[in-house]
């Protein structure tokens, strides 16, 4: 029965891992291309509403974001649980939007300014009152291109 006993072959049992770095680098490249850097800490909880007819934002670099929602737990002691507006890295009031828009507009190049989009990312349980205020303020400083952030249904 000696012919059934396999001779242990050391060379074949090793998997060649030389291409592993290449594979991992490929995944890395994929993530670097497909993903955008996290710009700021979210200080409000935003669950965007669902919609079906959504369009993609063409140029991410031309957009500025306004987050509206309930503050996250660690800020609730200070700011309560009512909906708050987050601009850049702090809670702001509606009146600050004017300065915010002006600053964002300033940071764009001359020919890009008309295409600036303000993306409103609001929690689905927000009341429209605060959003209407934001919209009115945006109209007042003539930032007319807006986008209501939504998730794909």
């Amino acid at each position, binding site marked *: 029965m000696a012919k059934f006993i396999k001779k242990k072959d050391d060379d074949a049992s090793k998997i060649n891992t030389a291409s592993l770095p290449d594979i*991992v680098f490929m995944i890395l490249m994929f993530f670097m291309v497909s993903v955008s850097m996290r710009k700021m800490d979210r200080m409000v909880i935003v669950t965007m509403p*669902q*919609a079906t007819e959504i369009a993609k*934002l063409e140029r991410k670099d031309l957009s500025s974001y306004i987050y509206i929602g309930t503050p996250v737990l660690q800020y609730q002691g200070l700011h309560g649980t009512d909906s708050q507006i987050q601009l850049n890295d702090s809670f702001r009031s509606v009146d600050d939007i004017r300065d915010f828009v002006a600053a964002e507009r300033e940071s764009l190049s001359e020919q890009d300014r008309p295409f600036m989009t303000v993306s409103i990312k609001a929690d689905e349980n927000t*009341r429209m009152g605060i959003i209407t205020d934001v919209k*009115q303020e945006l109209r007042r400083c003539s930032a*007319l291109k807006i986008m209501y952030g*939504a998730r794909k249904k």
Partner: protein
Amino acid sequence: MASKKTPDINGGSMADIAFLMLIFFLMVSTMDSEEGLSRRLPPMPTEDQKVENQKVKQRNIIQVRISSNDKIFAGNEIIDVSQLKDKITEFLTNPNEDPLLPEKKIETIEGFGDYPVSKGVISLQNDRGTSYRKYIEVQNELVKAVNLLRDDFAQHEYGKKYARLDEEKQLIVRKAVPQSISEAEPKDVKKK
């Protein structure tokens, strides 16, 4: 003479380094997809502009109102979200030339010819207490109705869906089926 052979570099740790970078990028990045409903706000009316009220005939406007307890009124009746799309479609197409529904104006579209364009305007109003979810839901239905009409038109004229047309033809379709949703000045919609 020194040997020509360069010493082997150990490539075994390359995978570890790559993994490290991968993890780093996973941590600092967001997969946030920038998607949503694009809108153009009407410019703020100046003082002297306010006097001259936009004259839109009653039949040409449909008021969609969302009350503070998320009830939807289209025209003057309470309506469910699911019915809204059909209501808007009927309003915009006016298939039977109903005198109560919006009139059509023959307009010459460059590169296409004459086409009766509906003069209907959807006026969307909401209360301060309306929830954002409902608002987006209604917005979505309105866009859906318009998109359906555009698809119909594109299919009929070019045999393709709107999204598959080239830029020029999309413009024609957009002119033929305008998306005229007006987000009216904020007004309190009373509970009824």
